[in-house]
Each structure stands twice: as C-alpha cells, then as structure tokens.
C-alpha cells in the first residue's frame, strides 16, 4: 500500500468523488488556487474560488444542495465557521425537518483546526461539540490518511450536511492508503488497539497520543484498549459500550475543551447504559476552558500528552473497586 499524507488523502477523495458524480462541486476560499489538479480535470465551473465570506459560501452550498448538487466547501479554519453558523445550523441543519422532508442537504463543510502550528485561538478552535449539538448535522474527525479519504468519500455520498474537521498538524502525517477505493462508513468507530484493563476513547490527533501511551502502558502491565471514534455524530455507541463492558474503566481524551464536550457525552453514555460494568469513575483528559494559545510551550500544555494519559490510566486501574 502506498504511503500518502492526510492532506493528499483528502485531495484523492475529492478527485475520486468528483470523477464518480458530476453533481459534486467544490468551492471556497482559495479552493481553485490550491487545487489546480481538480480545476484541470473538472473545470472552472465545478471548482471555484470565492470571496472571503464564510456565510455566503455555506449558504450557497446549502442552496445548491437543496437543488440536488453535492457541494463540498472549504472554510479554511474552524473558528471562521462562526461566520457561517446561520447557514450551517439554521439552514442546512434544520430545513429538511422544517420542510417536512421535502428537501435534503447533501453537502460537506471542511475546516482545519488543532494545535501544533502556533496559529492561536482565532485559527485553532476544536468546535466539533458545537456542531454535534445541532440537529441535522453529522460530524467527522479522521485520525489517519486512510480514514481521511474513506470518511470524506462517505461524507460526500451522505444525503445530510456533514462537518469534516481535519487537524492541521495531522495533515502532514503519512499513512498507508489502499490502492483500491475504500469507503469508511459514517458512524462506525474503530478499535485501534485491543486491551483488557482500560478503554481509552479518542479521535483525531489525540488518538496517536493515546496509542503511544497505550504502548508504554503495555510495558507496565496495563492493557489499554484504544477506540478511535472517527465520526463524532452519529456516535458509535455500541463499539464504546462493548469495550467499557469488557474493561470496566473508561477514559476519554480529546484536544477540545472538556466542559460540555464530546467526552462528557461519552461519559454520560457509559453512565446511562453501562453503569453496572464500571469499576471506577470515568476520567476525561481534555484541553482547558481557555482559548487555544499561540506559544509552542503553551500549545504543548494545552494538548493532552502521553505522560498524562499514562498517569491517569495507572491511577484509574489502581483506584478500581
């Protein structure tokens, strides 16, 4: 299998889907400038630059989707989505329901986020929980090149608006991607590493930190099972619950701030549906309730680190009843 970066995998998925379906179009800030290969193959009508105006980009996507096109829009950095909340949340997310099912909104909104580049809080803000809270939207956050390709393809083919958040630093990470076309269905988590003692649930860049920690935990006789959610919404409840029932211990790790976040939802899931299996309180390791910093030193402090996961996992196993 060839090795390509996450960013290249995204480009591959876009080209494959545009080739497969003439209704797939793409536009956004610098899309035609950056993706010359797509312009060359599919033409300037299907691959367009836009003004720096996130609201109308997202709204135009919603209007085109209502008419049967399958737009993919690039809004660059996740905090910029605040300019497009009306179009994404009020229109794309709600109008299928409001119209009594007359219209669908098959569209993908792409944006980058995550610490590691020192871009600071107005380019880096992991907002996945906001959109997961909005009805009608699906939310995807890949951790590998293969998943970036497979999830983006599934997102383009989905008849609902899908938020596709990619981590900036992860974009340059290489991974094996199969030659043949492979779709990663939305709503399916993946057990990245099997284990017996503790379940670690994560996604996106934090997954790799968790895997590194799990490797070290093995040497300390702690067997960690690591789950990659891949899709935040719809949440794959059964994969999480099966693991929690097996290990009896649950830790959730993500870069987004913890308050009212994805970790809280996963913890509530375990409390509601696997309480009897829990041998210890659920643990969350997350970013703080603070804007993402720009200083490299503060960025490291902001992100969950392997050492923290190690310590928390050992404490969790030790504290068990």
């Amino acid at each position, binding site marked *: 299998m060839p090795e390509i970066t996450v960013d290249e995998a995204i480009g591959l998925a876009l080209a494959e889907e545009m080739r497969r379906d003439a209704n797939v179009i793409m536009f956004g800030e610098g899309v035609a400038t950056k993706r010359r290969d797509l312009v060359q193959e599919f033409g300037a009508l299907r691959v367009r630059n836009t003004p720096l105006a996130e609201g109308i980009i997202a709204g*135009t996507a919603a209007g085109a989707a209502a008419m049967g096109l399958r737009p993919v829009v690039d809004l660059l950095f996740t905090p910029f989505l605040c300019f497009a909340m*009306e179009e994404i949340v*009020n229109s794309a997310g709600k109008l299928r329901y409001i119209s009594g*099912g007359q219209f669908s909104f098959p569209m993908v909104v792409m944006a980058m986020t995550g610490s590691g580049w020192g871009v600071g809080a107005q380019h880096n803000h992991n907002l996945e929980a906001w959109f997961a809270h909005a009805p009608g939207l699906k939310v995807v956050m890949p951790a590998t090149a293969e998943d970036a390709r497979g999830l983006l393809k599934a997102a383009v083919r989905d008849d609902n608006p899908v938020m596709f958040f990619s981590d900036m630093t992860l974009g340059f990470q290489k991974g094996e991607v199969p030659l043949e076309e492979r779709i990663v269905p939305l709503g399916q988590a993946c057990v990245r590493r099997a284990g017996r003692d503790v379940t670690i649930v994560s996604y996106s860049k934090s997954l790799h930190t968790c895997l590194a920690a799990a490797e070290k935990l093995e040497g300390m006789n702690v067997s960690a099972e690591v789950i990659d959610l891949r899709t935040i919404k719809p949440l794959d409840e059964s994969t999480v619950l099966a693991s929690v029932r097996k290990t009896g211990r649950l830790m959730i790790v993500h870069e987004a701030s913890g308050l009212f976040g994805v970790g809280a939802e996963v913890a509530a899931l375990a409390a509601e549906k696997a309480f009897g299996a829990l041998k210890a309180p659920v643990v969350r390791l997350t970013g703080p309730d603070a804007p993402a910093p720009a200083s490299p030193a503060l960025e490291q402090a902001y992100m969950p680190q392997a050492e923290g996961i190690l310590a928390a996992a050992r404490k969790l196993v030790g504290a068990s009843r």
Partner: protein
Amino acid sequence: MIPRTEDGAARSMLETMMLVRAFEEQNVALAASGKMGGTCTSVGQEAAAVGVVKALRSDDLILTNHRSVGHLLARGAEPRRVLAEIMGRSTGYCKGKSGSLHISVKELGVILTSTIVGGELSLATGVALSLSMKKTDAVVACFFGDGAACEGVFHESLNLAAVWNLPLLYVCENNQWQAFVHRKETMLSDRIAPRASAYGMEGVTVDGNDVEAVHAAALAALAKIRATGKPMLLETYTYRTRGHYEPDDQSYVDRDELAQWRARDPIELMRERLLAERRIVPDQLEHIRERVTDAMAEALAFASNSPFPVASELTTDVYA
C-alpha cells in the same frame, strides 16, 4: 406612462391580491380569537408580491421571507394547505413542521421561506448556481425586505451573484419597517436599489403598490436576466400597513404616514383603475368576491378538520 397588463391577466392579478388580503385578514381574525398563533402578515404589500410572482415562468424558482403568503398564493399554493400548515396540521405543505414562518413547496418551486432575516439571500445564490450549471434560462426570484438589506449577507449575496453571473432577481420589498423599527432609524438612504450598482449590478425601484407597474418591471428584469445571465435588483417601494405580527397595536406607527399609505391601498388602486377604465365590470368583481369568500371558508374548514401530526413525527425528517 402607467404600464397596462392585458385585461384578463389584470383581473387575475386583482383576484389574487384580494385572495391574499382575505387570507391574511382571516389569519388576523383567527389569531385574535385565540384559534391559532399570530402570523406576520403581508397586508399592504399584495401588489409587490403578486406583480412579481405572476411575471415568473413555471420553471423559475422562489425564495422568500416570513411575509410569504402573497408569494405562496400567487404561485398557486392552495390556501387550505397553507392555512393547515399555519395551524400546525399534518395536511400542511410541510406536514405542520414549518408553521407560518418557513413554508416551502417543492412542487411549486418555492424552495424556502426564511424567517431568519437574510436567510433567503444566503441560499438564493446556491439555488441560482444549480440553474446556471444546468444551463437553463430559468431564474431565481429572491424576496426580502429593507431589513434584510441591512444584514451583512445582503452584501455577500449580491457580490457573489454578480461575480458568478447568477440568474437571480433580487426583489427588495421596501415596506419601510424592520420588525418594530422604522427604516428611517436604520438607514440613511431612502432606497435600496442604488446599492446594486456597488456590485456592478443594475437596480431599479418601482411603485410597489401599483401591481401593473410591478408586473411590467418584473417582466423587463426577468427578460434581461435571461438574456444576459446577470443578476438584477428590483425594489418594490411599498408599506406594511399592519404590525410586525399579530396582534400588534401599532402604537409605534406614525398615524399620518399610515393614513397616507392606506389611501394608496394596492387593491383599491387596482380595483378603481379597472372599473374606471372599464376593464372589469361590477358583476365580474362580485364573482371574484364570491370566489374569494368561498375559498376562505373552504380553507378554514379543511384546515380545522385536519389532524395534528402524531407525536412520532417529532423526530422524523431530521436526517435523510
């Protein structure tokens, strides 16, 4: 010179305006009696809506705003299904999931009623993009008010439509009111149409209370859009003669201004003109009145007797 429509079409526009007015007045009465929630009526703006919608082709598409009864009924929506929707019944166009504020009718090409002021402007470009990619000469008509013209998305929408040459007729119904605030408090200019030129777009203002003038201006604009593929802005200068929503005592409205505009009621203007020019005879007018009255009674009976959605509908149609 006042534009004149062919007599049959002129009578038809008068009838549609009377239907819209009767529908809105029935809504006002129903809201006042507590039989349903209040709505945002389009009373006073009938000519602006009917004149434009009657100029559209059946393959043209519509996006509109929370005062959409005129656009819906002029497009041919059944009063009974609109009323059922407003009353939250399952026989409404959106199965009762819209209520009065967001009615869409796919089969009639009404893609959206947006109650978020400006929402229609943000989706209209995408709807028009789909038409331009299909290479038809159909046009999207997007109805919004002077309030929406003060939203940032107005600028974003007109700019993008101009840059991409989208087949879009922007129709600004300048009704002088932005919810409970008079336009004079929020804009230094009197008109919206001059803003179009800032985007390299043609903008015209028409007397929004003269349905034949509106109709002629809309036909001319649509022909130009079809011929050039470029968007245009048509401002229908009119007045909202009732409150923001029902009930509303309009205590904040200048009495003289309201009286002046009521004296130029679009339906009265058209009726008097057609009678004076002998383009309608009193008998025909009487028949129109009867048809409108019957339609309202029929709509009310249908909607009142329609079932509410069952509770399981609460979570259907969320995801495709």
